[in-house]
């Protein structure tokens, strides 16, 4: 499946060493290099979160007591909404890998179909995140709602043992980490959706068919899977632990 340098390639397009390093095309390898450095950024955030979360272990808010809302209901359902978001992202990752697979068969119809599903999945994830942010800022049924003084960032009402009737202040760092980590991840999802959309439009226009291969789908696929991968870690380290 991976590109193997079995054919003789024109010297002009090769790297200085006369063949491609690791038998990977230039674009794919640069995407891997980008992902490696990007993963270090996320790793830095998660390390900082892990450190603060454990050294403030007595005051750190309990995630299940904060993120238990579901749209349209008052049921107490801890972790269900974020599990749903995780599931949406995993499924859109699956449709992406199906698009890559269809690309290897030069099956334009299926590439377009699966890429379209991927774009929709990413958009749904972004919408879910917007709802979660809104609920987090305004509190259950909007009781903390004070956009004017930017309540959740300046004063975190989600201390241990907080209830809607009796809000307890917790460490500000909790809200800071929440917005920073999920926000940084969300901006990655946004750029992933835009990239997928560009590749989708070009697939419909037949660019890659003319080019003879769908490697561009594979490259944006790598990025999209990385976004999913990061969310797997965010889910564990922010919500579960």
């Amino acid at each position, binding site marked *: 499946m*991976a590109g193997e340098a079995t054919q003789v390639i024109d010297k002009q*397009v090769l790297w200085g060493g006369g063949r491609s390093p690791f038998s990977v095309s230039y674009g794919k390898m640069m995407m891997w290099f980008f992902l490696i450095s990007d993963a270090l950024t996320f790793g830095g955030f998660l*390390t900082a979160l892990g450190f603060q979360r454990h050294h403030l272990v007595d005051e750190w808010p309990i*995630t299940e007591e904060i993120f238990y809302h579901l749209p349209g209901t008052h049921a107490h359902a*801890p972790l269900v909404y974020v599990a749903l978001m995780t599931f949406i992202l995993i499924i859109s990752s699956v449709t992406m890998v199906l698009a890559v697979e269809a690309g290897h068969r030069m099956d334009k119809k299926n590439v377009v179909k699966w890429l379209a599903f991927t774009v929709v999945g990413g958009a749904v994830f972004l919408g879910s995140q917007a709802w979660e942010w809104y609920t987090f800022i305004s509190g259950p049924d909007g009781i903390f709602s004070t956009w004017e003084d930017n309540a959740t960032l300046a004063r975190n009402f989600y201390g241990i043992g907080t209830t809607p009737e009796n809000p307890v202040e917790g460490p500000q760092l909790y809200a800071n980490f929440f917005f920073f980590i999920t926000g940084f991840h969300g901006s990655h999802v946004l750029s992933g959706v835009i990239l997928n959309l560009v590749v989708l439009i070009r697939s419909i226009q037949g660019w890659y068919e003319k080019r003879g291969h769908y490697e561009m789908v594979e490259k944006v696929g790598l990025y999209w899977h990385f976004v999913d991968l990061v969310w797997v870690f965010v889910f564990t380290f922010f919500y579960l632990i």
Partner: protein
Amino acid sequence: MERDDIIEYSLHAHHSEEEGRKIRKKIFFVTMLLSVITAVEVGMGMIWGKAHIDVNGWGWMSIKIAFILMTILKAGYIIMIFMHLGDERKTLRRIILVPYLIFIAYLFFILFFESTYIHEFKAFIGWV
């Protein structure tokens, strides 16, 4: 001008209808596995989550370790199957994975030992 993103060996990454069916089967298997692991994680979080368990005890520690192991398992499947790293050259695979195995160990260390030490040290000198 020649473009280096359309050189010949990229064209080599084609497969037939039959291979495609095999690959789709594998994708389906990984999808099920990832969904099941996520469901187990959420179930464990709801039953033995930090809302119901003493966060300073050994029970919570072992659940945390279980969460981390499941996360690494999920990450491994995403990287090796979805990102096709399992199909790349061995050298490239190691260049990408080995630094992160070390990094995950470091993350683990910061999470469990360094921060706990600071926590206890603060209690010891009475600084909150």
